[in-house]
């Protein structure tokens, strides 16, 4: 029989340390819904999503009840709509967003991701119209998430797309200014976007994927922090890394079990488990607090990047043995507004955008959920995207930018979304104009790292 202490440890993780499965995400290919007539295509999209995912929410709830593991989100990711919209004569691409939103409401899922375009090397037919429609799509729908991949290690960085996205991010915030600029929180700009990511807002279903697939994202910063708090005193860094690994193993095994069970019950192939430590604004569910538990006075002080690198690496090493297929983003997330410790550190001036930028070189994503002043220019947003994409391109890793220009607010004010998206102070950005650099357009050539053959 199982050891009592192990059983009680699991119960304690769930009851007191916020252990949960963050998301079961069903990836659905929409390649067979392509049609020249946009209305027909939208009907096919709606029908296919509703058909493929009709049992997703119920299955998630059933597994939650039987296994006693909270499953927070049930989500859907689809083929980048830029591709699906390519042959459509009509330029009213936003109709696809309505179809996705309608399907999400019908099924009761939390989000549907994939209002996306992959333009790392250039714009194909459909991509341009899709990107132009993002502000309207995110303003007029509730559950649709959007992402645009503007660079990769293999392709370099598409600076025309970078220039465009600065404008689009700003516009998206502007058209949702009456709702805390929420549109911008549903829009991610990627470099090296993964095709099997179950996390929002950046999830989409890559073209190399199966027709439908189940991907699971685990969570559990609270569990890692608690393990360090209980056993970390007096230990050296090697031992700390070991403790993180062991905890990550347990968390991931749970994710693997849920993924396999969901895959079996839904008769949909299992894709990957994403080993990310995803924080929430809840007390005790913070990545920043793990770093502080390692011995930093506050997240953002010198030493933060090293501690985060250790954490990110140990999470992967522990998780990789626990799952048969690992993918997605897999690492520690640092979304400022969604992490109680990061919010505090930012409010007290310990964490600024430049420190966050250096942290993104060693964690799994990028500048995530950062509130910037409402009068930020599109060129500065583009330049922040370009910097972040350069880090991803050179280091052969995913980086992303999800900035929220807080329209009508200035540095020091606060923006409050509520719920999982949290709240955060408006952070100042650096002075000086990158306008001429951004307006050049063109492409940053792929780095030498791309030439591996």
């Amino acid at each position: 029989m199982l050891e009592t202490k192990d059983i009680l440890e699991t119960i304690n993780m769930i009851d007191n340390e916020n252990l949960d499965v963050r998301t079961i995400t069903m990836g659905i290919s929409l390649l067979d819904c392509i049609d020249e007539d946009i209305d027909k295509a939208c009907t096919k999209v709606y029908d296919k999503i509703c058909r493929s995912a009709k049992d997703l929410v119920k299955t998630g709830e059933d597994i939650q009840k039987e296994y006693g593991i909270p499953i927070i989100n049930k989500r859907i990711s689809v083929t980048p709509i830029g591709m699906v919209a390519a042959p459509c004569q009509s330029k009213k691409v936003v109709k696809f967003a309505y179809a996705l939103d309608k399907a999400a409401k019908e099924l009761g899922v939390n989000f549907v991701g994939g209002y996306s375009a992959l333009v790392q090397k250039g714009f194909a037919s459909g991509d341009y119209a899709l990107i132009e429609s993002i502000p309207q799509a995110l303003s007029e729908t509730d559950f649709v998430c959007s992402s645009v991949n503007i660079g990769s290690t293999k392709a370099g960085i598409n600076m025309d797309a970078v220039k465009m996205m600065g404008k689009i991010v700003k516009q998206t915030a502007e058209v949702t200014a009456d709702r805390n600029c929420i549109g911008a929180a549903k829009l991610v700009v990627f470099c090296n976007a993964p095709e099997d990511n179950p996390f929002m807002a950046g999830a989409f279903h890559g073209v190399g994927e199966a027709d439908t697939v189940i991907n699971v994202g685990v969570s559990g910063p609270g569990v890692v922090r608690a393990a360090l708090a209980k056993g970390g005193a007096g230990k050296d860094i090697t031992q700390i890394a070991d403790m993180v690994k062991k905890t990550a193993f347990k968390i991931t095994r749970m994710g693997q079990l849920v993924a396999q069970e969901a895959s079996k019950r839904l008769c949909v192939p299992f894709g990957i488990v994403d080993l990310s430590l995803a924080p929430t604004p809840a007390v005790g569910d913070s990545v920043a607090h793990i770093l502080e538990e390692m011995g930093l006075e506050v997240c953002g002080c010198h030493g933060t990047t090293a501690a985060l690198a250790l954490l990110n690496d140990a999470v992967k090493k522990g998780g990789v043995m626990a799952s048969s297929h690992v993918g997605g983003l897999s690492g520690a997330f640092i979304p400022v507004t969604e992490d109680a410790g990061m919010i505090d550190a930012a409010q007290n001036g310990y964490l600024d955008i430049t420190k966050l930028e250096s942290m993104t070189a060693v964690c799994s994503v990028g500048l995530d959920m950062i509130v910037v002043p409402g009068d930020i220019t599109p060129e500065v947003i583009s330049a922040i995207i370009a910097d972040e994409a350069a880090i991803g391109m050179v280091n052969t890793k995913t980086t992303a930018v999800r900035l929220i220009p807080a329209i009508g607010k200035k540095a020091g004010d606060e923006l409050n979304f509520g719920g999982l998206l949290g709240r955060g102070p408006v952070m100042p950005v650096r002075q000086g104009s990158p306008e001429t650099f951004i307006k050049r357009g063109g492409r940053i050539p792929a780095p030498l790292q791309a030439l591996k053959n």
Partner: protein
Amino acid sequence: MKAIITVIGKDTVGILAKVSDACAQADVNIVEVTQSVLQDMFAMVMLVEIDKSNIGFEQIKENLDKVGEATGTKIHIMHEDIFNSMHKI
């Protein structure tokens, strides 16, 4: 399918009896029980078979919640696999 019932709380007379009674009424077979009392905190772990139960998993869970409320303890019932996968390689 096997499930694990855990009961955690302040030790009082008759907890084991009440939980066992809830199991018996639902035709849930108790395979193994271990319990420990540390100071006056009570922790009991039961391995049970629920395949032949006359009510659904959800109903068993609800009934146990009621026992928990009545005895001032926290009772969980969870599929055995969750513990096996987390603690065994």
